[in-house]
């Protein structure tokens, strides 16, 4: 009961909903970049949404299944194929022992998620199977997948299969937004400290996602954002999607592998419902931001959470 890694892909890592409760020790959360795609992949194969999935980045792996399995691939369209035949995205598909799952050229998005019914059998570290590559722990053997790895699968034969294949509730349209719509944010803790020109530029200009962006942070380029007055700041807790602006004026969006605390001024905070859309952006793409109020941000989050809960039922 296992899968073998014939080709690892560019960066294929095991991730779940993150390592919670240890940030006071400086331990980052990690976890999936695109929470919606990850949860969907699990829900499609009848797993709990907290089960680990393989996060595939840009160039996918080639995996051989040693057993019959029920799988789902979600998120980016990276031309997934099983034994050379196109694999439909966002759908549970049965594969037979000996089948090979491979990926081709990217069509849209950056990160795809592979769920297997029953889940990958990997020991959690501090309550999570999410890889923290920089720390060398979590995931499969504390690192991204490599050629020749054999990943054990949990036995799912005894599990109730009645939930597989059912129709899943859809998100409300305001949760999803168009792929090119501005990324919604709330004003950051230090919003007021930025000068008026920078506040305007942040809401109107386009920012380019630079190539040195990774799971830790998305580095953006655009009009330089400046404080009205230089200020000494103390480090404080950071969340997924915090947008920090270091002295060079180029914003950095903190992503899944972010540090627990930081001391640069935060101009904004990406709304939870728009983090999946941001996580699927390619370096070179341009991004616009739209500031909304915290009431709207929480209403959107609650709406998304209701859909997740409906999938779990």
């Amino acid at each position: 009961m296992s899968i073998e890694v014939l080709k690892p892909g560019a960066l294929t890592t095991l991730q779940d909903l993150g390592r919670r409760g240890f940030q006071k020790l400086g331990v980052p959360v990690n976890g999936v970049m695109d929470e919606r795609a990850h949860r969907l992949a699990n829900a499609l194969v009848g797993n709990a949404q907290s089960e680990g999935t393989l996060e595939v980045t840009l160039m996918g792996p080639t995996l051989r299944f040693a057993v019959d399995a029920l799988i789902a691939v979600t998120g980016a369209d990276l031309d997934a194929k099983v034994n050379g035949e196109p694999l439909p995205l966002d759908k549970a598909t049965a594969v037979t022992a000996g089948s090979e799952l491979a990926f081709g050229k990217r069509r849209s998005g950056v990160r795809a998620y592979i769920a297997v019914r029953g889940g990958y059998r990997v020991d959690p570290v501090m309550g999570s199977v999410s890889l923290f590559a920089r720390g060398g722990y979590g995931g499969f053997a504390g690192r991204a997948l490599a050629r020749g790895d054999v990943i054990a699968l949990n036995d799912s034969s005894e599990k109730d299969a009645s939930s597989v294949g059912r129709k899943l509730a859809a998100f409300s349209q305001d949760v999803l937004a168009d792929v090119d719509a501005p990324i919604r944010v709330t004003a950051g803790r230090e919003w007021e400290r930025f000068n008026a020109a920078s506040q305007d530029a942040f809401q109107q200009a386009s920012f380019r996602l630079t190539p040195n962006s990774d799971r830790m942070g998305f580095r953006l380029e655009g009009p330089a954002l400046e404080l009205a007055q230089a200020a000494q700041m103390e480090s404080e807790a950071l969340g997924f999607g915090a947008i920090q602006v270091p002295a060079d004026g180029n914003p950095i969006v903190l992503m899944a592998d972010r540090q627990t605390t930081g001391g640069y001024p935060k101009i904004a905070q990406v709304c939870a419902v728009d983090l999946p859309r941001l996580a699927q952006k390619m370096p070179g793409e341009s991004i616009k931001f739209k500031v909304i109020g915290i009431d709207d941000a929480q209403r959107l989050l609650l709406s998304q959470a209701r859909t997740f809960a409906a999938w779990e039922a």
Partner: protein
Amino acid sequence: MNGVNSTAVSTTCRLRHSGERTVIVEVQSSDRVAANRIAREMAARIAAANYPFIHDIVPAMTTVGVHYDPHRVDMDSNDTLPYRVVESLLAQIINTSGERSTDTGRVVDIPVCYGGEYGSDLAEVAQRCGLSVDDVVKLHSGELANVMMIGFAPGHPYIGLLDEKLAPSRRATPRTAVPPGSIGLANRQSVIYPVTLPGGWNLIGRTPLRMFDPSRCEPCLLQAGDKVRFVAISPAEFDALNEHAGATR
């Protein structure tokens, strides 16, 4: 004794949201050490309330970050929103009088081999502080110091405030790779690098102890509220105690 008013220095706490999933408790005080102690006290009080919707409580220098799941907050009416409920519950906690000790009661000795290849900035730090190298070591290792917060990386402590003579600024150009166990010094604080990291602190020594090991039952050697005492050791003692796997000096 009320934690908020327990010093002669006036301090106040206020709540600010940082996005729709995090509330920051700000401690405002002219005395950084007092503000830090109160931040840790507030973190302990919030943890003791055991709210199921709060998943991480992150005490920092003068703030506490409270990360929560809005959809797990019980709301008795549809007119309100989770952040209002959370902020009102947190306001009750921070405004309640009553003392909760923030010290863990632990004193942890940190052996440090100072200077030379272990702390290549020691001589320069001494010069910038107008002290002899021996004076820097004595002042650094002489007193018990507080673990003010853990942050930036797993098990990465901020320790202080140290003697006021130990206040060199950070290096103008950060190093790209600082080896694990390195002791940094700047602005009356020390850090200890748990793993190889980039860093701009002045390196004055290195501990053979491993600050963070995810396979340990307690992964972090230190936690906020501990007291530490740096103890000077020789290179031979460093080698005997060295816990850095495959360590290269």
